[in-house]
């Protein structure tokens, strides 16, 4: 039997002893936290923090995290973790960059990057869904191997000198809005639609709620979990390629840090639904909290060391909230 690490996602309508008001307050806690952060930093530096330019700046800074967190959301909906989303993004971006550096056309290089990311997802899916490995162990193993592959692809150095037109993906600003924000919105909406309105999405939630019940209901649990990891690999690759375009360079570790932030964002978002299930809307709120906090702390001049401590505290708070909700069900 496959083991899962993420809190089980269940269908709504679980019993609770809370009053409707306290229940709503509980569920709105994450959104309230985001609002509180905005008010706090807005009060501390209103002219800087609340300007249109800074809002655009925050959205641009969290766009890639939003995409990778959406990938993590899909996996956590089925009750698993994917520790390899960051390195997958790195490898996909590095692959595209290396190919472009060798003269491959931009579309082909991007396609290759997407294929590489998807293949990592496929490997994860096979290991977890068909070989019954723990998602934690399987994706930890791919995290290590894929991280090594990224060093091989980049040769341990920083790849640069891609065609200028490639940079428009990550650096152009149609209507004054950075293009990565549009990509993030498209990915988030697409994932939301799949989770909310398609049979596949409902099957993912069913598997996350109880794999055994889903199986008895006729859901192909193995296939559902396999597809979740595959989609996560593909989405991570999108994030990685946009990051390379945004930075104009690719290193062997450029997107690795996104994994932890993505997990934190999904956990934060899981508190929003009464069921405690992973969901795109909640994930975006989580991403927003991380982005606003990082930007706000930078603006008020707090050191990065302290910022890292705060990020850890937020992860602990999110996991604790999720655990408390699970216990209440």
């Amino acid at each position, binding site marked *: 039997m496959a083991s899962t690490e993420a809190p089980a996602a269940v269908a709504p309508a679980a019993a609770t002893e809370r009053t409707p008001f306290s229940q709503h307050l509980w569920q709105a806690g994450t959104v309230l936290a985001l609002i509180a952060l905005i008010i706090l930093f807005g009060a501390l*530096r209103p002219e800087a923090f609340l300007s249109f330019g800074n809002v655009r700046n925050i959205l641009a800074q969290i766009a890639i995290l939003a995409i990778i967190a959406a990938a993590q959301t899909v996996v956590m909906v089925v009750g698993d973790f994917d520790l390899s989303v960051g390195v997958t993004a790195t490898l996909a971006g590095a692959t595209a960059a290396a190919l472009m550096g060798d003269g491959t056309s931009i579309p082909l290089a991007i396609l290759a990057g997407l294929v590489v990311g998807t293949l990592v997802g496929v490997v994860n899916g096979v290991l977890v869904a068909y070989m019954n490995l723990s998602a934690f162990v399987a994706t930890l193993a791919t995290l*290590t191997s894929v991280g*090594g592959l990224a*060093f091989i692809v980049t040769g341990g150095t920083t790849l640069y000198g891609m065609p200028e037109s490639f940079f428009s993906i990550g650096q152009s600003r149609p209507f004054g809005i950075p293009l990565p924000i549009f990509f993030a919105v498209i990915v988030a909406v697409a994932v939301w639609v799949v989770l909310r309105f398609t049979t596949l999405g409902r099957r993912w939630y069913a598997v996350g709620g109880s794999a055994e019940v889903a199986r008895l209901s006729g859901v192909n649990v193995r296939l559902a979990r396999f597809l979740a990891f595959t989609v996560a690999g593909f989405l991570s690759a999108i994030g990685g390629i946009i990051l390379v375009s945004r930075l*104009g360079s690719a290193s062997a570790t450029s997107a690795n*840090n996104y994994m932890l932030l993505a997990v934190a964002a999904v956990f934060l978002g899981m508190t929003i639904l009464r069921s405690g299930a992973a969901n795109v809307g909640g994930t975006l709120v989580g991403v927003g909290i991380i982005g606003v906090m990082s930007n706000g702390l*930078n603006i008020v001049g707090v050191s990065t060391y302290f910022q890292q401590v705060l990020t850890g505290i937020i992860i602990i708070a999110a996991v604790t909230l999720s655990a408390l909700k699970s216990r209440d069900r």
Partner: protein
Amino acid sequence: MRGRFAKVVGLGLASALALAGCSDSGGGDGGGGDTFKVAAFTAGYGTPVGKSTLDAFVDRGEQLGWDVTLYTSDFDYDKINNDVQSAVTQGVDAILAGFPDPRQIQPIVTAAKDADIPIFAIDGGVEPNDDFVVDITTNQQQIADLTVGALSEAMGGLQGKNVMVIGHDPHVGIATRSRMAEKLLTDGGATIAGGEIKQVLSPGTSQEEALKFVTDYLQANPEGLDGVWVGWDHAAVGATQAINEAGRNDIFVTGVDAVGIALAEIKKNGPFYATVVQDWPGVLDETMQDMQTYADTGDLPEQNFVETDVTLVTRANVNEIKPTDS
């Protein structure tokens, strides 16, 4: 049947991953009893300079007939300590420490001393250290002097200017030159933007971190930045990108290392004003010479700390400079 199939697939995947994950090690041909055996290590193999220098050491060592084994990690000193201690136990004639943090290799130093094995270091710190029979590095004060001088030239002096300093304290060299630059800047009448050195958390993501530092700072202080001094080039490229995106042409950046992406930025005549070449090939030459002498005669270098000069790279000479990561 399904179980067997799954196992076969699993073994196939594991084999594929293992094969794909195999990287070149510097292991020689095993050598005979007279072969000079060297354990080389670096925890900075993920950095362009670390990789190119250690790869060159392995190549040249093998050309000299040495039996060189290279141990690497991504700033994981626990792994490095274990690997090299094992190598010492198995028997080596010398150790080459590539860009080590001297504070984090005491198990290696102790094991080497116990076995009477000399450690030759490249960039092993910023001051003489008896742990090494020789440490050949670059002159950190000269790096700070040249880069702060270039920034001063670009900004039209230091007096009254606001300068952001971006560093990374876990790296001894960067931490040292960052402090030196901070002192030179404040002594010259500049103010450190944000009140303290901005610390990048991870060298691997330094470009994006520096991009955010400068973007956010400019958002809050549009007129409060005249220059950015950065301890290494990748972060300097991120700072440059932030300034470009803000549409500013009156803020200047300096870096250190002269990697290809930085030289490309300097050639654009944009905010990236200058960097510094640390002569790692020259340092490697000198190190190999010392090791060759030891291999041939058993003689150790007379001086245990050698600082080499660096070269400032600006728009004037950038076309003559070869990238250090090529």
